[in-house]
């Protein structure tokens, strides 16, 4: 299938925060005022000013302490429920780039509070964020200005371990499948998360719930996506579900 994809191999991630910070540095996003809450995860969550956040999860594996890292970001769905919801509400704020498949929030189009609530709730991965003052939505935009110039997204460029990968979708899917096969030999629970419907493909070595409650789409959301599609079918062209 055409377009781009991220392949994020969490087994290589050391939570250095290079990706989180490179994204902010490139897009001129503010460093917000945070507090030490007894956890390295700061900021605590995605926000209007934070489009990529490294989530830390202390777990127990075979009775011994372990630590999983999840570099959360927009999944750039092939069929983005946020986009369909916005369209059903008459908003042009969310578009999908034809060439790359990047799902983009327009930084100049305002969205009403009640509309944003519906848009956020439509996302199974809880990605959309919004600024009350300016009424603008924000999230990862696949560094669309960089990739159009043939550069890698900032987060991918900064990653020292090979956790963050980016390229043509078929190549990323190949890479993901190959790596999954390697890791499954050592970690039987290794899996790719919803790879068929997303452009941001995460690989984990354990139950995704141990990483983050919204790491994987657990079935409820797919029903929601289908429901949203039914809603918007008269308004938009209905593309294929699987890519």
């Amino acid at each position: 299938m055409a377009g781009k994809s991220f392949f994020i191999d969490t087994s290589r991630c050391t939570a250095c925060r290079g990706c989180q910070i490179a994204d902010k540095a490139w897009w001129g996003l503010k460093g917000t005022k945070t507090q030490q809450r007894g956890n390295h995860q700061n900021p605590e969550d995605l926000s209007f000013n934070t489009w990529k956040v490294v989530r830390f999860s202390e777990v127990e594996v075979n009775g011994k302490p372990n630590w999983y890292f999840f570099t959360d970001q927009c999944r750039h769905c092939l069929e983005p429920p946020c986009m369909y919801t916005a369209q059903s509400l008459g908003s042009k704020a969310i578009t999908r780039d034809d060439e790359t498949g990047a799902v983009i929030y327009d930084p100049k189009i305002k969205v009403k509070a009640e509309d944003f609530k519906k848009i956020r709730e439509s996302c199974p991965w809880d990605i959309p964020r919004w600024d009350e003052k300016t009424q603008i939505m924000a999230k990862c935009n696949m560094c669309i200005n960089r990739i159009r110039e043939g550069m890698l997204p900032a987060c991918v460029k900064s990653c020292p371990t090979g956790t963050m990968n980016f390229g043509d979708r078929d190549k990323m899917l190949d890479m993901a499948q190959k790596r999954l096969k390697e890791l499954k030999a050592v970690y039987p629970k290794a899996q790719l998360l919803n790879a068929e419907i997303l452009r941001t493909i995460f690989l984990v070595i354990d139950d995704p719930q141990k990483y983050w409650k919204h790491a994987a789409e657990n079935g409820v959301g797919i029903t929601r996506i289908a429901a949203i599609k039914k809603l918007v079918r008269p308004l938009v062209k209905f593309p294929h579900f699987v890519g």
Partner: protein
Amino acid sequence: MTNSWTDIGVSDCVLIMGSNAAENHPVAMKWILRAKDRGGKIIHVDPRFTRTSAKADIYAPLRSGTDIAFLGGMINYILEKDLIQNDYVVSNTNAAFIVNPKYDFKDGLFSGYNLEKRAYDKSLWAIEKDEKGIPKRDQSLQNERCVYQLMKKHYARYDLNSVSNITGTPKEDLIKVYEAYAETGKPDKVGTMLYAMGWTQHTVGTQNIRAASIIQLLLGNMGMAGGGVNALRGESNVQGITDQAVLFHIIPGYNPSPKASDVSLEKYNEKNTPKTANPSSVNWWGNRPKYIASFLKSMYGENATKENEFGYQLLPKLDDGQNASFLFMFDEMLKGKFSGFICLGMNPACSLPNANQSREALSKLDWMVAVDIFESETSNFWKGPGMDPNKVKTEVFLLPACSYVEREGSLSDSARTAQWRYKAIEPIGESKADGQIIHEIYMKLKTLYEKDKGVFPDPILKLKWDYAKAGKVDTHLVAKDINGYFLEDVPEHPVDKKAYKKGTLVPSFVFLLADGRTSCGNWIYSGSYTEAGNMMARRDKTPVATANIFPKWAWAWPVNRRIIYNRASVDMQGNPIDPKRAVIKWDAENKKWVGDVPDGPAPPMGMEGGKLPFIMKPDGVASIFGPGLSDGPFPEHYEPLECPIEKNPLSSQRVNPTISLFKDYKFTTCDPRFPFVATTYRVTEHWQTGLMTRYQSLLVETEPQMFVELSEELAELRGIKNGERVLVSSPRGKLEAIAMVTKRWAPFKVAGQTIHEVGMTFHYGWLIPKNGGESANLLTPTIGDANTAIPEYKAFLVNVEKLPAKGKGR
């Protein structure tokens, strides 16, 4: 590092110990994970489970300050199960050497100890030599006084139970680590050790490294791709700093600083130039006089002549026995013995131990010049907490320095590789490059000395100082001076019989002469900037694929050798012991070596003219028995100065018997008021004392405040919840921190007791950000390693108490 960053990627077993590589050397993980991709095992040994442990195949906990017990246990395991690489050990180390009968070890002390002097008479540890002056040896390693047998006896006390009792590491974890690592003793397997401050910042720091070196020699891992003893250096250019000898005890290229009793150049050379009776030993330090003469020519130019010992009398000398390292220096400063202090790019108010005293010391100066890119707790010490500016007499100057992207020059990384970097923008505002600042200070000093004369102006006035063009320092001129020049025409060079012209750059240190015809600012960098160009600026990725080294990427010292001691990686005929990871190989047809730059061009050991592999040692072999260090020829476990238990479980000698004690400072040991072990460390998101990073909002956002990591068990003991404010105190000071309660740090079972350990960073300081917290060094002790005096930041005692919610009390 003995090896390179990149050949870590071909290792079978990476032992990360005394290092939290993922958090402090994040890019190193690229190569460590490549080793894992190829089926290599990653082992992490650390008091707590960190972001490095999360990527390791095997994690083992150990109490801070017990690395020698852990490693000694590994030595014992290897010897008991006879897992040494026998041929390697017999040929390449001093395992077979016979030690004189006066050497002994009993109950924690080696023979020759003087309690009053707190020092050993090392002559009692001498190796026995024959009438020719060559060490006596027993190739069968059976003689009861050979190094091998003495080592076996020494480490027999480091059995699994004893080790576990000291380190708090569960026995099954010890076995897992020992078994996995000892596998690399096989000729076709290789293991590497990566370490950092977790091994060095102890009163036994040097001996920690010695223990690692012994293991790597026993297993035949030195000189091999994917092997070696590899220090992950703590700053981007600290390797450059130590190479250029910004340290009191050496001059550039690791030559010893001259002392007052070295009354002449001849006497200095006589004392410091080793000799060997073994014709197979290269004994490369035998060339020292050439490097000293060339260094003096670089310093004093035309003012250095044959007649005046090349200006040797102008070089500053240390008093005999003087120790001018930081602990001693700041002790003198506190006692009012300094009038002034120039502090470049350093924040001692937060980085030196016992920071309250360090800050107090600064207030005793008449003047201080801080050179830095931002204001710091040091430049602003006079308005810090507890300071009354009206009472501080120190006149403080702050000279704005520019950052590394605003100037051109080289940085030398852990792999001895000097990489040239370009200037991205001109220095902002009035900031200047450090080199430019030093140049301008020098030019002004020169003028003043010319006018006012002074007591002894010659060392200033007679310096050769040609590093600037039209008042602007040109780092290329400095780099070339470091490389070295021919100062006269040399019609027939003794080394290659070729002719060299005056004013041309020397090809390498092989061409330096002791007669004043060459200059060289630093012999180990000779070859870095030659007639062929700036070797440090090269960026060619052509590898020596088997070893995964990149000889055309920048330039490494010495002479661009990437893996040192590589002559130990081949057999007597020059064939690689591990062909799939070949570093060098003897091409018999063309009679030369291919691959990495060999440790000297001599043919393999088994051929005529062959040389032993460890060319920097007078005997040509590596030391398993090391009679040169101040605290013993074999590493021995001693407790940190501030010890959580009453006695050293291993002997009656509680602490390192040769460390200098600072009796005027506060310490404690086995103290119910300070019952917990504390350690200090760093995180990815901040840099050193945080001076560069605490001004960056994106970094402060990720790590905003001082925290203390502690176990769930300790939190319960003290009624502390995750995220709560706590007070951490030591005999020297106290600070507030946020509790980070975690399963990743469990208490240790040591000597039948439960010992709790906590940890903090030293990234914070009172200046910025507001409510960020203070430096952990308010708590650390004034005590250092027996050989280097590096402070024991890694193991001391504290108390941790819950604080009332904000608004009450504190």
